[in-house]
């Protein structure tokens, strides 16, 4: 596909929007790494640099009523979807102002209002969920779509196979997007995947499937667009394999024994942001416009950090608050307290006490 033509077809503002999202993600992730090193963020942290074109190209074509299910490497998807950098950073900091109120963390970003249906940390675990939400769409008779994002490592899980088969036989409105960054942790895709091109696995379920250059935001965008159009016309699920690369280790703990620095360098040379900047410059965009975007994202990310720093941790009293969702019966019984409550009314759980007690006490593990 000719890049110039696409540039021609897409309004200026939208093009700048794509660049902005990619730059924002890049900046955000580098800052997150820094905050991790400073101990502000804990646990596992999986970063997205290198893969921005895939997430941004994909998500730019979704409607507000489409659903997204992702995995644990999902900051980029969340930001592309319009989740506030502040609230995402606050989540990484474990703050109550985070998108998941500090309960989720880096791997579990969620925003129901934007139909960003979560990052999931069990490889392949989000695929059945995506099928189910697509089934709900189908039953309700609307033409929105569910997108399931996952990595090359996930394609060897049983859940992958079962989900693709289910989506195919029921013609569910799901777009499966495999971000093939060549590695699942330290394992190269070719060592564990008997199918050379992953997208061919989807074909065996009778599904439309294709491979795209995941380092080219416009190519991703274009193919996603076509796939979505078909899905909205009830033609059943589709599959896209985006060839991409992660620049950083699998997580912050990864010593990267399994690949050569030179390989990383090779991929960096076709950096999706630089490539897209080149495209824009070759069209009629000015250096300054693009630089302005960099400045803007710097500010946004600084703001996000400030916001996260200044936010509170969730109060210890809320520890047991969301274990159960309130149900009709609970609301009846607690008419005076309309806040979510735990469901077991009659349970004198010694754990609640334990939970409260613990707040005052010291903890030695780790």
């Amino acid at each position, binding site marked *: 596909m000719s890049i110039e033509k696409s540039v021609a077809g897409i309004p200026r503002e939208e093009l700048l929007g794509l660049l902005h999202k990619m730059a924002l993600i890049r900046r955000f992730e580098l800052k997150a790494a820094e905050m991790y090193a400073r101990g502000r963020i804990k646990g596992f942290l999986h970063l997205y640099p290198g893969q921005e074109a895939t997430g941004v190209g994909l998500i730019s074509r979704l409607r507000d009523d489409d*659903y997204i*299910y992702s995995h644990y490497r999902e900051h980029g998807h969340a930001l592309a979807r319009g989740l506030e950098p502040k609230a995402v950073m606050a989540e990484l900091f474990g703050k109550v102002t*985070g*998108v*998941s*109120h*500090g*309960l*989720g963390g880096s791997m*579990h970003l*969620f*925003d*129901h209002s934007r139909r960003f*249906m*979560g990052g*999931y*940390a*069990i490889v392949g*675990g989000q*695929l*059945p*969920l*995506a*099928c*189910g*939400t*697509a*089934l*709900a*769409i189908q*039953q*309700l008779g609307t033409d929105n779509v*569910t997108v399931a994002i996952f990595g090359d490592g996930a394609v060897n899980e*049983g*859940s992958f196979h*079962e*989900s693709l*088969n*289910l989506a195919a*036989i*029921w013609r569910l409105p799901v777009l499966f997007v495999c971000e093939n960054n060549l590695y699942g942790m330290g394992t190269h895709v070719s060592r564990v995947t008997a199918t050379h091109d992953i997208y061919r696995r989807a074909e065996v379920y009778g599904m439309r499937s294709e491979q795209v250059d995941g380092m080219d935001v416009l190519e991703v965008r274009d193919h996603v667009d076509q796939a979505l159009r078909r899905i909205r016309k009830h033609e059943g699920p589709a599959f896209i394999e985006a060839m991409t690369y992660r620049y950083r280790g699998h997580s912050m703990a990864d010593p990267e024994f399994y690949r050569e620095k030179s390989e990383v360098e090779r991929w960096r040379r076709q950096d999706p942001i630089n490539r897209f900047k080149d495209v824009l410059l070759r069209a009629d965009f000015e250096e300054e416009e693009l630089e302005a975007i960099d400045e803007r994202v710097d500010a946004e990310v600084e703001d996000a950090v400030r916001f996260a720093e200044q936010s509170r941790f969730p109060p210890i009293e809320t520890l047991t*608050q*969301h*274990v*159960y*969702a*309130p*149900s*009709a*019966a609970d609301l009846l019984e607690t008419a005076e307290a309309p806040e*979510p409550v735990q*469901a*077991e*009314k*009659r*349970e*004198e*759980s*010694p754990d609640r006490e334990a939970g409260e007690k613990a707040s005052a006490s010291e903890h030695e593990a780790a």
Partner: protein
Amino acid sequence: MAELAIRDALRDAIREQMVIDERVIVMGEDVGAYGGSYGVTKGLLDEFGPERIRDTPISELAFVGAGIGAAIGGLRPIIEIMTINFSFLALDQIINNASKIHYMFGGQVPVPVIIRMASGAGLSLGAQHSHSLEGWFAHIPGLKVVCPSTAGDAKGLLRTAFEDNNPIIFIENTALYGVKGEVPEGDYRVPFGEVRIAREGSDATVIGYSGSVPQALGAADRLAEEDIEAEVLDLRTLQPLDTHGVVESVRKTHRAVVVEHDWRSGGFGAELAARIQELAFDDLDAPVARVAGVEVPMPYSFELEKAALPSEAQVVDAVRAMF
């Protein structure tokens, strides 16, 4: 009141709910034309069509996960896992997704999915088809665990489940599907977290759930012949658990025996024993006793299987030994 078998009471509950709530769908292996392995969904395909009564591939992980995803997307799915023995294949979805999604995303979305499954032993189905793991599910916060032993409770608890916004593990004992009982007409519910006093008594509390309740009652009959009046409790739901109801009874009788088909070590009976001694230590005249499954993979051979399961006689002995 109608006399119904448990399977029919369950079917009635599902049918009535499907009529009033378009969002309810049923999914599982052979729930359609076949009517479900234990006949619970028989006839529903004809009434509601293949869009709402969905036969699935043999893909437990995917269709249970899809049930969860459908609940998130606004449906009220009822998933049938043919038997609890196949639920192992779907546990990742049940534990890592269903039980946690509401909490780990900060309470943003409820997961109103009902996951039905048949459990239990005693039908010579061998080691891979005879699990009773109610207690395992009750260990996982975020799930509710329901396990009726009568037709009236089966329907009433399922109706309560329809109105609950949480993932419900609804466990049906295979040996009880055909057992008949009275089912109230009309719009009734059985609340979660309330024991049923299946028989009143003053001398010992015998606690059962699911398949072990008939044995508890049988033992109480025999004990009555010896002038020991056992109070029999049917837990009905393990999560929420009616600790209060259990402890009240034990405070009255001063003796407690738990009967369960599940393996003894780490069965739900262990939790009951632990709680009772925590909360009623000074009221106990004897340690809480457990009559449970012998810790073996279930043998196929009939007499061995019998020997591996708890018996009325063992319950009687356990109570007698407390006097």
